[in-house]
């Protein structure tokens, strides 16, 4: 167990290093001059040269990458021409646009993403797993047909369409809620909740379709297994067979996939955040891309990668905990 975790964490570090090489080379070798981008439209060649010097872009690709790694593990210093800015580890660089430290930017934006994702998790666990279980229990009946139709429609709807329709219905047509705008939890917990209600529903319902299908198929698959026949042959009631034995088979995959999803969403639910104007990591990424602010883009991708890789380790552990037959190697 401990060995497995250590092994996987070591693997995770390797994967992240590989990712950083890839991302770094892609973004810094890309056509387009980072110095020009950093400096802005109105810079003259002299200023660009100065910026290039400051950013260390005159050095070799390899040295630049080493500096990047140094920043991540030990921190580094940046000179902004007049002063030296200390960027502590883990340093992901400075934003071209605001000269702000990317790490700090990420930390500032993380609570918004976390607020969105955790609420959505509750929605999909309740709605998704509930729907899946209900349609497995009522298999063959009209309830199942309706639920199957709904989940099929749900899985065919991109999240931004679902969000737009909800916005239209709830905010514009019914006018039950004002158009959401993000309020931090620390500022006003009640407003935080009301404003996030629609994003939670959007992201949660969108994911629910997937979890309903997963729960249903895993439950039905277990129902087809031989041990179910055993309990039927011993007079155990159908209800107990489904809820106690068949649903149990759906628990490991639901838990594991939830963990993986959470991990990748912590790196930003780009579409949902963008639609509802939630200042999370996804929004940061999009803003970074539009402003061609490379350090921010690289930073968010690396943070996302870290979350994803860690979430996968956690998912494996949870899966093994939920299904003791799995041997962790």
């Amino acid at each position, binding site marked *: 167990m401990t060995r497995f975790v250590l092994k996987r964490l070591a693997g995770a570090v390797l994967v992240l290093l590989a990712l950083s090489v890839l991302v770094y080379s892609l973004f810094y070798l890309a056509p387009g001059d980072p110095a020009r981008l950093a400096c802005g439209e109105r810079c003259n060649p002299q200023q660009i040269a100065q910026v290039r010097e400051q950013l260390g872009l005159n050095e070799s690709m390899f040295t630049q990458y080493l500096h990047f790694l140094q920043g991540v593990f030990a921190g580094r210093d940046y000179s902004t021409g007049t002063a030296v800015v200390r960027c502590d580890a883990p340093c992901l660089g400075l934003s071209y646009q605001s000269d702000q430290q990317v790490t700090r930017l990420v930390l500032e934006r993380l609570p918004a993403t976390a607020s969105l994702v955790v609420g959505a998790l509750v929605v999909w666990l309740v709605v998704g797993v509930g729907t899946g279980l209900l349609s497995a229990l009522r298999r063959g009946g009209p309830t199942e047909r309706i639920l199957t139709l709904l989940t099929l429609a749900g899985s065919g709807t*991109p999240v931004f*369409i679902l969000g737009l329709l909800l916005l239209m219905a709830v905010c514009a047509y019914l006018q039950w809620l004002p158009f959401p705008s993000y309020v931090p939890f620390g500022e006003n917990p009640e407003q935080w909740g009301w404003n996030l209600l629609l994003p939670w529903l959007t992201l949660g319902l969108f994911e629910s379709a997937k979890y309903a299908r997963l729960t249903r198929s895993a439950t039905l698959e277990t129902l087809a297994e031989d041990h179910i026949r055993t309990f039927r042959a011993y007079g155990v009631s159908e209800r107990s067979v489904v809820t106690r034995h068949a649903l149990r088979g759906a628990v490991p995959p639901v838990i594991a996939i939830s963990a993986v999803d959470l991990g990748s969403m912590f*790196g930003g639910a780009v579409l949902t955040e963008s639609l509802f104007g939630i200042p999370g990591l996804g929004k940061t990424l*999009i803003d*970074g891309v539009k402003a061609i602010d490379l350090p921010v883009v690289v930073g968010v991708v690396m943070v996302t990668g870290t979350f994803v*890789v860690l979430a996968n380790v956690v998912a494996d552990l949870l899966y093994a905990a939920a299904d003791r037959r799995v041997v962790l190697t």
Partner: protein
Amino acid sequence: MTAPTDTTAPVAGIPASGAARQVWRRLRTRPSALVSAAVLLLLVLLALAAPLLAALEGQDANTYHDDLVDSARGGVPYGAFGGASADHWLGVEPGTGRDLFVRLLHGARISLLVAVGATAVQILIGVLVGLAAGLGGRWIDGVLGRVTDVLVALPMLVLAVALTAVVPRDFPRPLLLILVIGFLGWAGTSRLVRAQTLTLKSLDFVAASRLAGSGPWRTARRELLPSLAAPVITYAAILVPTNIVVEASLSFLGVGVTPPTPSWGQMLSTAQTWFRADPAYVLLPAGLLFVTVLAFTVLGDAVRTALDPREASRLRVGTRKESRRDSLKETSR
């Protein structure tokens, strides 16, 4: 030691010649699959005939009609249903007054072109990598496996968004989207192909082929490839709608095709500011996108069950966890 089974019942797996007929026979009995196929056929025809239909309507995609929108109300089209009229069958775009019918049709072209193109790239890379991993030695398998793991793990949309940032603006966007989605999304295919190859490789008929003196290439061509075709085709049918959504998502985020080229995602992005005043402008592209994705999904599902209902469950034994995760990976949120 298994119980004796000397039955004459047919076993899983269908001879190649009969497969197409069998699939067709099973599909025919599913109305949902037939309707989906019809919808998609119609859509493809409409997309192909877009210039023709535009000429028929007498409009084009990029002419502004300032006279059709109410500048006093911020550019909302005059008239009901987004300004639908005999001249503009589905109304006009708010703000600019461009013809919506033609723009939607051109949007379909982009959507289908990018999705199908990206799927082709994904399948090509995925099959090659999967075969190499499944047939190659431990070392090759290990390296390719790690690369695949990373790609499967990372959210495709985040990477795609990030990648679009570094490519020069003048690079043709549809081609860029095909390449970006294609190169980021092959991991699922390669895992499928690898798993299938490993399963097949362990079957006795492959051993028999070796004993007959066949070299690895002959064995792969004769014994493996024919059995791989069905699952790969099925997987491709599932990839297309995913790719449609990814393209629409990227355009929605403003990093997809560049204006004035029309795209559904981009329209929905602009529609965010118009949904109060001009609901038609949201509903039309949203409806089209929804129907297209749904039709592809339904058809893909039907093809999968029709090809071999037992295949999926048979191959899932032992790698259940993996396959579950893979099949559910590709979502854009």
